[in-house]
């Protein structure tokens, strides 16, 4: 007991220092960093592409690595020193001193427990059915603007609300050191802003904040220091403003350049120059759809012609994907009709999915699935090979099953598959929202090059306004309250 009070005293108001941390999987180093330091009130953000070892580092600090990964090194919180290889030595810190906000909070919450009870479990001095802990949980939830969510089950919450519930559960124990793992995954900008406010407040109140992300906008918002990681080691470190705006390092510059607002590609000018051609490929007339009592869109009319690039934007849960599906006639409508032109017959309206792994038959090699497409659409011999080399993949990638290919590569294979049908419209449903910035840039470049070359229309569903601005010239914004609003950027045909 004295030990614990000792730690209580010694841990407050001190820096977190990691002189050196190495994590290996067999012989391969996954993380090799030195001289990490986080001070109260000065957040540290670790950025880098997928597979650079960011999350592994976070779990090494937390002491939650899977047993196959072997950590080495030490970390110190003030005068207290901890051996990273000793997984159990830091357990007593969890919740009260160190907390981790996990990836995909919707999956981290227990689906069978009411929100209030899960949050209360982390409260200091929690016992089953303790009313003090429940009261504290209610209070925390109210602080986060979730006063009514206490008795809800997690599946009824939106992504942003689930994120805030997870935040309440992680911080209710009074942890000063907060490690946040990829908070931006699947969150729309509004929800991400609210979370960023919470994290900033935690830091401003003297907390230590370590955020792992591939979202550079979040890194800029949080301020403090940033650490750029690549292939297990640190490429560059320093204050955010300096590293992310005036970096000397080529890798950092590439990473920053991968943000949609900074893209410069040849296809970005082609779209504006090409006049929309003839008959609309897809025309919706006064369509309406609602889920239960909630109307998604009502009396919406839209016409998409060849060569046009449309973006459907808006916060999550307003029916962007439903609208896209309705335009492809994949979902039944309450009112109105969608007409497809003659040229769209024969499988020439194609869709790219948010999770490409789900859009291929999961138990057969990709080659078998691809062969059926080639045969059905009479693509000429060698077309698959040439398309694959255009997207930068070797032919033998098709020998694998969908689960054995990374998300970015699989999305490129999905683009190849869609292109085999010589499509007139491609509907990209958040096709890059789960990829890191660099893969998103590559994938979008490939998609847009194909779109520009073939002259087909694009319908992009995204919550990323910058991405929509960089790739499209027609905008369809869905809002939660007022239904749909048409908003046309560029000089194209008004509807």
């Amino acid at each position, binding site marked *: 007991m004295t030990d614990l009070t000792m730690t209580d005293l010694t841990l407050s108001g001190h820096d977190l220092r990691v002189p050196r941390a190495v994590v290996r999987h067999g012989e391969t180093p996954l993380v090799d960093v030195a001289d990490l330091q986080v001070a109260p009130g000065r957040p540290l953000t670790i950025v880098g592409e997928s*597979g650079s070892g960011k999350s592994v580092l976070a779990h090494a600090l937390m002491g939650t690595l899977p047993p196959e990964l072997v950590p080495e090194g030490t970390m110190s919180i003030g005068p207290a020193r901890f051996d990273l290889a000793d997984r159990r030595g830091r357990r007593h810190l969890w919740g009260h001193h160190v907390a981790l906000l996990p990836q995909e909070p919707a999956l981290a919450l227990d689906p069978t427990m009411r929100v209030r009870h899960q949050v209360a479990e982390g409260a200091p001095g929690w016992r089953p059915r303790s009313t003090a802990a429940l009261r504290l949980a209610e209070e925390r939830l109210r602080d986060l603007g979730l006063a009514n969510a206490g008795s809800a089950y997690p599946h009824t919450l939106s992504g942003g609300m689930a994120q805030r519930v997870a935040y309440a559960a992680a911080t209710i124990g009074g942890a000063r050191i907060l490690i946040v793992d990829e908070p931006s995954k699947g969150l729309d900008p509004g929800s991400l802003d609210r979370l960023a406010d919470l994290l900033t407040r935690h830091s401003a109140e003297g907390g230590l904040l370590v955020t792992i992300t591939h979202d550079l906008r979040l890194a800029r918002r949080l301020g403090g220091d940033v650490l750029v990681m690549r292939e297990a080691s640190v490429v560059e470190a320093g204050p955010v403003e300096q590293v992310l705006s005036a970096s000397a390092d080529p890798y950092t510059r590439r990473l920053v350049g991968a943000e949609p607002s900074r893209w410069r590609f040849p296809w970005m000018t082609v779209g504006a120059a090409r006049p929309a051609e003839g008959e609309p490929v897809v025309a919706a007339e006064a369509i309406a759809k609602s889920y239960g009592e909630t109307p998604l869109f009502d009396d919406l009319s839209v016409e998409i012609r060849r060569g046009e690039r449309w973006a459907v934007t808006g916060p999550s849960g307003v029916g962007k994907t439903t609208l896209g599906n309705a335009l492809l006639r994949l979902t039944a409508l309450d009112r109105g009709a969608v007409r497809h032109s003659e040229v769209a017959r024969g499988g020439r309206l194609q869709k790219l999915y948010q999770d490409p792994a789900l859009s291929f038959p*999961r138990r057969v090699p990709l080659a078998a699935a691809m062969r059926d497409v080639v045969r*059905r659409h009479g693509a000429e011999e060698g077309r698959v090979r040439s398309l694959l080399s255009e997207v930068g993949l070797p032919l033998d990638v098709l020998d694998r099953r969908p689960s054995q290919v990374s998300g970015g590569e699989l999305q490129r294979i999905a683009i190849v598959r869609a292109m085999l049908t010589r499509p007139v419209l491609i509907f990209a449903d958040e096709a890059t929202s789960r990829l890191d910035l660099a893969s998103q840039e590559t994938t979008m470049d490939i998609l847009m090059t194909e779109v520009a070359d073939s002259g087909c229309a694009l319908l992009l569903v995204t919550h990323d306004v910058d991405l929509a601005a960089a790739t499209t010239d027609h905008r369809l914004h869905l809002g939660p309250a007022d239904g749909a609003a048409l908003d046309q950027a560029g000089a194209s045909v008004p509807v």
Partner: protein
Amino acid sequence: MTTPLLEASAPLGSRRRGRTTRRVAGVALAGLVAFAVVGPLVLPDPAAQDLGRFLEAPTLAEPLGRDDYGRSVLARVAHATRLSLVLAALCVATALILGTVAGIASAWFGGWVDAILRSVSEAFVAIPALLVVLLVSALASGGSLWALYLGLALAQWVEYFRVVRARAGLVLGSPAVEAAGLLELGPVHVVRRHLWPDLRPLLTTIASLGMVTSILAMSTLGFVKVGLEPPRAELGLMITESFPFYDVAPWMSLAPIAVLFLLTVCFLGLRSSEDNA
């Protein structure tokens, strides 16, 4: 997608153990099948009586001895095993094809097709399987092989139907099938690339269980003298017939029991434990 720190590596030891189990079961089953195929060809007629040699103890020439009519127990067991395996395989194949086709049709077309197939299947579920067999046997003339086959197949198809319908519903509603629809790849592609690879591991598991159920059901019926009639060599019948002599000629009852036991264990060991996620 969630990036787990490491792909969850399935415990290697248990997978290897599963493979060894399956190999041993496969070899033992192959041995039994060989016995059932070759035995009846080389062994003497199972119905040939030699009353002078009744209840003769096992010898080198007659390893399982002779029964109360002086018939060779080894020859009778070989014939009985062949009968059990062939009839069980026929029943399982019929039930599997019927159940799978009905299950896929039900999930594919929905609506009234689904409603009709589901109510028919529920009617079968409501009657215990053995009762279905008894009903069919009662309608047909006594001891007919056809009645037994039809009864067993009818009692089993529901299981395939329900499993296939549930899984096919999931697969057909997946984005992968939606994408196949947009690519207009047609029903053959959907069945061959999406449904069949997904259903195959499930079906092999149910089929190996179904073999066990059929063999046991057949011998149960033989045991209560409803199924096949003497003098036909059948495992259940042989057990009943040997009961009065269990103290003087234990080999008579032990042989069919051992075959039943081995067949059951082998088919249960064949089930694939992995790959049905």
